[in-house]
């Protein structure tokens, strides 16, 4: 945690992307998914990255999430140049600095909610107060009473809240949410967005990938992608969490 005052959030860049390109090889054809994206996300920001399918937003999220490395360009996450890291160091970055929230929840089946939340701590090598930390994270998302339930015994909204608890349990620098409400009904969606807004107001940096305007309006800043390039980047008045 950087401990920056909210007013100075642009002073420290949590994410610094400089002229990022990504080229995939599909057989003999080279696909240019990103053609030079430059983006800074400061501490405590709530950014929505929007774009139609094929715009490169998923590729961008994979790179921000350190699941993939850019072909060219520089990516500095919380002061660390990601391109210099090996596989194990990238795993540690994903473990400690990034909290993932996926569209399809991606909880481990046949493991209880609390065990799912514990998982990142296991890989981080936390042993002593792991269970308490996991319970605290579950309680923070209002799921303390469902700790012993398996994913199949939870509603979609509850599963996603469990996934958010898992993302937060290692106190990551950023929360990376990829279409977090894509598989949820509108009521659960509102619930999840309310939770994200609340987490942001507590100082979390959140990057949200979405194609829905309804969801993006909860963010404070909207970055639009098209054909692998940033076409607009604007601050906006955040919608009320209750809306």
């Amino acid at each position, binding site marked *: 945690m950087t401990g920056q005052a909210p007013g100075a959030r642009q002073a420290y860049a949590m994410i610094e992307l400089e002229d990022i390109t990504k080229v995939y090889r599909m057989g003999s054809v080279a696909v240019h998914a990103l053609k030079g994206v430059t983006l800074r996300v400061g501490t405590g920001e709530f950014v929505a990255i929007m774009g139609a399918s094929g715009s490169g937003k998923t590729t961008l999220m994979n790179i921000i999430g350190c*699941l993939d490395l850019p072909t060219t360009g520089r990516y500095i996450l919380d002061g660390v140049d990601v391109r210099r890291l090996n*596989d194990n160091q990238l795993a540690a970055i*994903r473990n400690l600095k990034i909290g993932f929230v*996926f569209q399809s929840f*991606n909880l481990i*089946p046949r493991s209880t909610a609390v065990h799912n939340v514990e998982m990142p701590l296991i*890989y981080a090598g936390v042993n002593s107060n792991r269970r308490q930390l996991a319970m605290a994270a579950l309680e923070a998302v209002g799921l303390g009473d469902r700790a012993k339930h398996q994913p199949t015994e939870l509603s979609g909204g509850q599963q996603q809240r469990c996934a958010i608890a898992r993302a937060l349990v*290692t106190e990551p620098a950023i929360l990376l949410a990829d279409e977090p409400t894509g598989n949820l009904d509108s009521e659960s969606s509102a619930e999840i967005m309310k939770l994200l807004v609340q987490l942001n107001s507590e100082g979390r940096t959140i990057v949200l990938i979405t194609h829905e305007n309804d969801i993006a309006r909860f963010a404070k800043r909207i970055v639009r992608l098209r054909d692998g390039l940033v076409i607009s980047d604007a601050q906006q008045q955040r919608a009320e969490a209750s809306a």
Partner: protein
Amino acid sequence: MKLIEALALAVSGLNANRLRSALTVLGILIGVAAVILLVAVGNGTSVQIQNQIQGLGSNIVYIYPSNAKVGGVSQGFGSGQTLTQADVDALNDKTQAPDIVTAIPVSQTAGIMVYQNQNWFAQTSGSTQDFAEVRNYDVSAGAMFTDSDVRSSAKVVVVGQTVVDNLFGGDPNAALDKTIKIQRQPFRVVGVFASKGSQGLGNQDNIAIVPITAAWSYLQGGRGKNISQIVIQAPGPDTVKAAQDEATQVLLNQHKIGDPSLADFTTQSQQDILNSATQITGILTAVLGAIAGISLVVGGIGIMNIMLVTVTERTREIGIRKAIGARRSDILLQFLIESMFLSAFGGILGIVVGTGVSDWLATAKIGNGQFPPPVVSIPSVLLAFGVSVGIGLFFGIYPANRAAGLHPIEALRYE
């Protein structure tokens, strides 16, 4: 990640697919049990053969004439007639051979015997009154013939239990003082040897012993005073070698042969026989173990197969784990431990089943004791268990490596 976490993870993974895990364990179980059981059977055979050889008598050395040669062509084992009564007397001379307790001549002969309307064939030999002691036979009825019987070429015989079974309905006392015909010559039964308990090949109870003088006079049709072997007895296991060396020296002197390599006789101690038998049963055990080992390898392939299926099924889970910070080594360890857990568990159950069945076979006396009771060897148990764990490791590496090498994005996208 701590090992205990990885173990807990592996157990929960296996628990999720109980039937599949159980069947995989079964494959290893059968392999390990088969190795233990078959090696135990090999060992049992070895022990049985050793007992039989030791039953031939204790601390004894056999001396055979060398193969006779006619025009440079060997006439076959024991065909020479180079051993004489004088040799036996020299071997019994304490000043020449202090480590030989007794030396007895044995003259083998045809053994077709008839009693009333029954006939039978037994290994029939002429020897002296010391035969019973040297060859470790007890007398269950009557008595061994005496020194005076030998001197007077008395037509008396001491028979083994198998002969009694076949000619006298099994009762040793019923055979006493009956006259049987051996090669049409009447011999009176004066004693019966107690059974040595061995059956089948090399039955030591199917014998008949007559005074060697009687054998020479009545049973060998003018072949002279043929001695087919001399058996000498040493005082104890430590002196067998000395007795063997003394016998060689005495006979070389007797036969006036200077170069031991030209000796016209061969000596063979019980230890020599035991060594060659042990060698043969060792090969038998190794072959049995190797055959069983094949099933262990098949079990290992079963593990590999199941682990590959598991990795494919859990591709998405692997992607999730990688996304939340699992390193390559964490995933590798998780799946390796799963496969080793399967094989080790199968190994432990295999030991239980293998030793259990071995013990049961040992007490069940299959085939009236003909089947050698299996003897479980501890090294084979440890080896089988070690190999099963090793197999889990070996056959687990490929699937685990495959899991660990998955790209997180691809894995997460997997449906």
